[in-house]
């Protein structure tokens, strides 16, 4: 796999023995990985200065494939690990990729607290609206009425609006896109990385197997078409029922690590005085 020029993404992949990936045919997680790589490239970041952390799930398997500093943590806690790492290494760009269950079920608390502290991390939620890895149980983002292994009669709970939660909790930057909009996705991720403070990018992603099969949503192609047809750029008033894509929140709030460094500086000054 040394044909480097051909596909620049390959430069970033751990091609040796790791491919093809464990993901099912048509699974969109790999598409998100591609977008992350392109964002990193676009920002001219070196592989050494990037860390990619994940929790547990199909999404959690992502870091293994890419040649950054990578860590597959525990289920739901990736943002807490990342907070520690970022405080130790403020110079590194830390991207945290999580499934919807990982980020918002078991990990919901770390999600809102990372947002509240506005830690300078880029959190990417691969929202396939299901627990892929464990076979298709409903997640906190499964739309009401949809089926899952644990909702044979249809989900009776409301779904979280990830973006609203992130905003209410205090994130600096919140965006949404889909795997169909892969070309816009890498730009949003790049903006998230660039943003001071906590950035959240929700990516609607097809899980043709665990979600698709239980919900007769068709194969990967059908699911991508659904993303294409049911989302629209933010502010598009012509399509009121559709899911908005793009930057939903972008505001200036002090980042945690930056503030902490100021605290260190002033505490030291005071200690000397």
């Amino acid at each position: 796999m040394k044909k480097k020029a051909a596909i620049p993404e390959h430069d970033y992949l751990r091609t040796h023995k790791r491919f093809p990936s464990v993901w099912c045919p048509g699974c969109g997680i790999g598409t998100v990985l591609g977008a992350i790589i392109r964002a990193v490239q676009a920002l001219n970041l070196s592989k050494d200065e990037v860390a990619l952390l994940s929790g547990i799930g199909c999404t959690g398997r992502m870091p293994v494939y890419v040649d950054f500093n990578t860590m597959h943590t525990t289920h739901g806690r990736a943002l807490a690990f990342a907070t520690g790492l970022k405080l130790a290494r403020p110079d590194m760009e830390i991207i945290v990729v999580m499934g919807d269950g990982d980020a918002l079920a078991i990990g919901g608390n770390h999600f809102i607290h990372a947002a509240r502290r506005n830690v300078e991390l880029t959190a990417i939620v691969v929202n396939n609206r299901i627990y892929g890895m464990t076979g298709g149980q409903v997640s906190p983002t499964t739309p009401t009425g949809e089926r899952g292994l644990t909702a044979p009669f249809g989900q009776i709970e409301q779904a979280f609006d990830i973006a609203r939660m992130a905003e209410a909790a205090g994130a600096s930057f919140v965006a949404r896109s889909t795997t169909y909009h892969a070309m816009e996705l890498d730009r949003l991720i790049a903006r998230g990385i660039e943003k001071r403070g906590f950035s959240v990018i929700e990516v609607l992603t097809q899980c043709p197997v665990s979600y698709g099969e239980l919900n007769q949503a068709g194969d990967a192609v059908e699911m991508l078409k659904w993303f294409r047809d049911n989302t629209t750029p933010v502010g598009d008033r012509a399509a009121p029922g559709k899911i908005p894509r793009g930057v939903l929140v972008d505001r200036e709030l002090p980042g945690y690590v930056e503030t902490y460094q100021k605290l260190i500086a002033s505490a030291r000054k005071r200690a000397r005085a």
Partner: protein
Amino acid sequence: MSDPLVPRHGQPKARLMQGNVAIAEGALAAGLGFFAAYPITPANEIATVLSRALPRRGGVFIQMEDEIASLSAVIGASFGRLKAATATSGPGFSLMQESIGYAAAVEIPCVIIDVQRAGPSTGMPGAPAQGDVMQARWGTHGDHPIIVLSPSYVREAYELTIHAFNLSEEYRTPVILLTDEVLGRMSERVELPLPQVQVQQRHHPEVPPEWYFPFDNEAGDVPPLISFGHGYRYHVTGLYHDKAGFPTGRKDEIDDWQDRLFRKIDNNVERIARIEMEEMDDAEAAIVAYGSTARGARHAMKEARQQGKAVGLVRLVTLWPFHYAAMASIGRSVRRLIVAEMNRGQMLGEVERAVKGEAQVVGVNRTDGEMISPSQLLEALE
């Protein structure tokens, strides 16, 4: 913040110091750079001291949203090269169990301080106990090795905290400092800081990145560990992994890794497990104790000796790994072992297992939030 903090030492001076403060000071002496915790009685003073001291030294103190997040952040920071620790008590220690297993599996140095209080459950937050001894060994799912230290004196709390950091780096493992409410909240005379502190720095690889495998057996039982962002890009996972850190299902790779994981501790029990013996040469009975209970035991032992009884003291400084061989030979040398613990008999089981019936083994226990008094022990020695 990214460089490890320099250890702290200075002119020793006689002073009154609280046990929890000694732990915080010991951690700073060892070069602590990151502390994340969630408040809980009776461990709070550690965080209080560090929240002020760390930023002054350029280190990081962060109060996390819970104990799970605290230990997770500690692990993250340790991968970022800082010496990192957390402190808690029983309920928080229970919550940390999943992350402790992760730390053991990915072999990341860190120190977890558990200031034990009376339990189970909420129990009696302001009262002491030693009920987490077996939990410290077995609390997380699946087999894993661990090192657990237990100080008895405030000065020892300081020293063992430094030692805990050193062991964690030397063996690339989480180390638990298991102390208790008595020692945590009492103050006593110490002469600190130490004029000289021995600090174990992380073993860094000497090979170039291409040859570096963070979980390799070749480099000995404790592979060097380089932190993130230094050009050695590797993968870390709690899944069974190969020498490079990648998930594996290959039995040979799993065995290689697991055997090494246990070997690095099991082969060094002699070095890791500290047992202090006193008046054991001619002892017919001995009190086995650890933590603050060992103080009452020493008091009782001295009193018994004054009464002319041949009583010795076996103080466990290291609780895990347990030194079965040493305890077996102690068992052969006396007629009776009194195992004193503020629990319902936890180390008692290990002593029995080691002693194999060669001596009579008797537990002296209490769990009502009071220390075991010397007179209780003297009675048991009758």
